[in-house]
């Protein structure tokens, strides 16, 4: 924070405002303002359209403020097939995936700092090297099939537990801590697990928070696992379900267009769901958790990427 204050005066602070400077500043603010709007507006647009009258929304009249507010679209989601189970799957894999990843990352990062470990350097390389190669889609699919993991919940969790990049981050972080911290506990007779739980884990909170957020966002956003390994509808994730809804909506919209009815405004009531309204409502439901946690955790992202960038 203190560093930021210095950054307020990026160019030394004692310069005079020249005309070119002022023109530059105006453009600078303007361009950043516009780009930021472009980043926010789509989310705003979807949110106001899901709570507006579907008739007006379909006619394209809801662009800036919600009109004819109602929540029928959200109520309608309750009766939507598969949405409940998809939400459970998504929440389940996000929570379980994040907890296991964070604990494994912390534990492995910590264990790889224990110099007494048998062939430590070899095993560390064994883990880190997997960042740089990839067997490919079909071999992965065949492997999952061989292991009996296709169409199970665990296909979402098990392959993501060990994440080498995060392990490097945590290991570097632990190595930067004063050695005396662990030595003292060891002399007090604390075993390797107690040192992990009571000393290392608490001081690693900032870096683990970063790992947790990336793991959670990754789990929540991933749709490829479902696409490739899952055919059982009960195990669909929200993202994948949303993808199928959009595709249905697009084929429906295409059908409407082909039969020559212009838009959907002709026949729909204000609160009757259209494919578009359903698709947008599901989108809002899927994006809402990210929108809610994002501002709270933004500083962790920044911190995490800074630690990562120091590492190179």
């Amino acid at each position, binding site marked *: 924070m203190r560093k930021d204050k210095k950054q307020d005066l990026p160019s030394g602070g004692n310069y005079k405002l020249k005309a070119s400077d002022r023109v530059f500043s105006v453009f600078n*603010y303007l361009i950043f303002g516009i780009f930021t709007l472009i980043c926010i507006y789509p989310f705003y647009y979807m949110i106001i359209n899901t709570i507006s009258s579907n008739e007006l929304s379909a006619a394209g009249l809801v662009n800036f403020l919600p009109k004819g507010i109602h929540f029928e679209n959200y109520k309608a989601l309750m009766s939507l097939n598969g949405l409940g189970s998809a939400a459970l799957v998504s929440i389940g894999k996000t929570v379980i995936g994040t907890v296991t990843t964070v604990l494994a990352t912390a534990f*492995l990062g910590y264990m790889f700092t224990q110099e007494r470990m048998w062939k430590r350097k070899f095993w560390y390389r064994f883990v880190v090297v997997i960042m740089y190669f990839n*067997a490919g*889609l079909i071999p992965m699919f065949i492997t999952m099939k061989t*292991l009996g993991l296709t169409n199970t919940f665990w296909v979402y969790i098990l392959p993501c537990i060990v994440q080498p990049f995060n392990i490097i981050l945590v290991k570097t972080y632990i190595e930067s801590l004063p050695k005396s911290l662990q030595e003292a506990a060891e002399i007090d007779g604390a075993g390797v697990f107690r040192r992990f739980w009571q000393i290392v884990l608490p001081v690693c909170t900032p870096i683990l928070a970063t790992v947790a957020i990336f793991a959670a966002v990754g789990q929540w956003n991933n749709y*490829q696992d479902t696409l490739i390994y899952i055919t059982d509808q009960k195990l669909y994730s929200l993202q994948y379900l949303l993808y199928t809804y959009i595709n249905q909506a697009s084929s429906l919209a295409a059908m409407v267009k082909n039969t020559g009815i212009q838009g959907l405004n002709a026949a729909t009531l204000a609160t009757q769901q259209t494919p578009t309204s359903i698709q947008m409502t599901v989108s809002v439901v899927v*994006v809402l958790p990210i929108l809610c946690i994002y501002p709270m955790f933004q500083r962790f992202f920044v911190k995490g990427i800074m630690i990562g*960038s120091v590492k190179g």
Partner: protein
Amino acid sequence: MSEESNARSGHRNRAGAGAQEQAVHIGKSKFVGFKYFLWILPFLILVFLFSYFPLHGWIYSFYDYRPPRSLSQCEFVGLQWFKMLISNPTQVSQLLQVLKNTFAMSLLGIATSILPLFFAVFLNEIKCRKFKSFVQTFTTLPNFISWVLVFSVAFALFSANGMVNTFLQQIGFIDSPIRFLDSDSHTYLKMLLWNMWKSLGWGSIIYLASIAGIDQELYEAASIDGAGRFQKMFYITIPELLPTFFVMLMMAVSNFLNNGMDQYFVFQNSFNKEHIQVLDLYVYNIGMTGSSYSLATAISMLKSIVSIALLSLCNVVSKVTRGETIV
């Protein structure tokens, strides 16, 4: 901080009492070292199962694998698939188109990879802190939503009865909706723009972090020498960021063939298929939904090998020019 000092004083007080135990520890260290290994063994098994074991799947590219049958029941065809890639005319033209798409998207990505740097430099020139953090917060937001949601956004705004078409029709600019999504015009450019929308703000964070680390004395010295705002930007800030840019560039080059399929899969449809299929998506299309597991495996195997070669090359370049490796 206080924990640390507590631990330190604890160390000093107990050092005498603990000396004996420590000696025992050293005596046992071989055993302890092996025990440590056993604790991480489950994770090593996971690593083996999901990263090393799948490599055995590469042998499928030497067989004519038909899924319901097991591998032993399938015919061993040797290098047939690899030969087909360079001799079968339809296959060759298809693969060339896919490679062209891959190269085009990657080159566009590399050509625009300087933009996050400028984004950071110019954002740093904004003095209103609230505005600055507002911009930073909301331009990084799209990075945290999935490509499915990006497509959902694209669909809401750009489909035939989406917001943009409806608006343009209302003001009488166009008579019939423009087909933004279901057409093959400017596919590369559209994909680039979506990618930039999603990742420009996020990409700039690493540069903003580097800017925060630049020695302020440099700016002060420059001010005394009479340097203006732009001179400082171009002679101090940007040169200081170039090493970071170089690392990012090398990473982009080493990932030249790995565009991933996330983005292209969701935007793919029967209209734009010709220009949107990058290698990763092509492998999915022919492997999981199409004709041949074995051919797809052969292609992805070649891709992996070229990628590793590229990575090693970038590593060497980095070592020669900067004295530091990137991996």
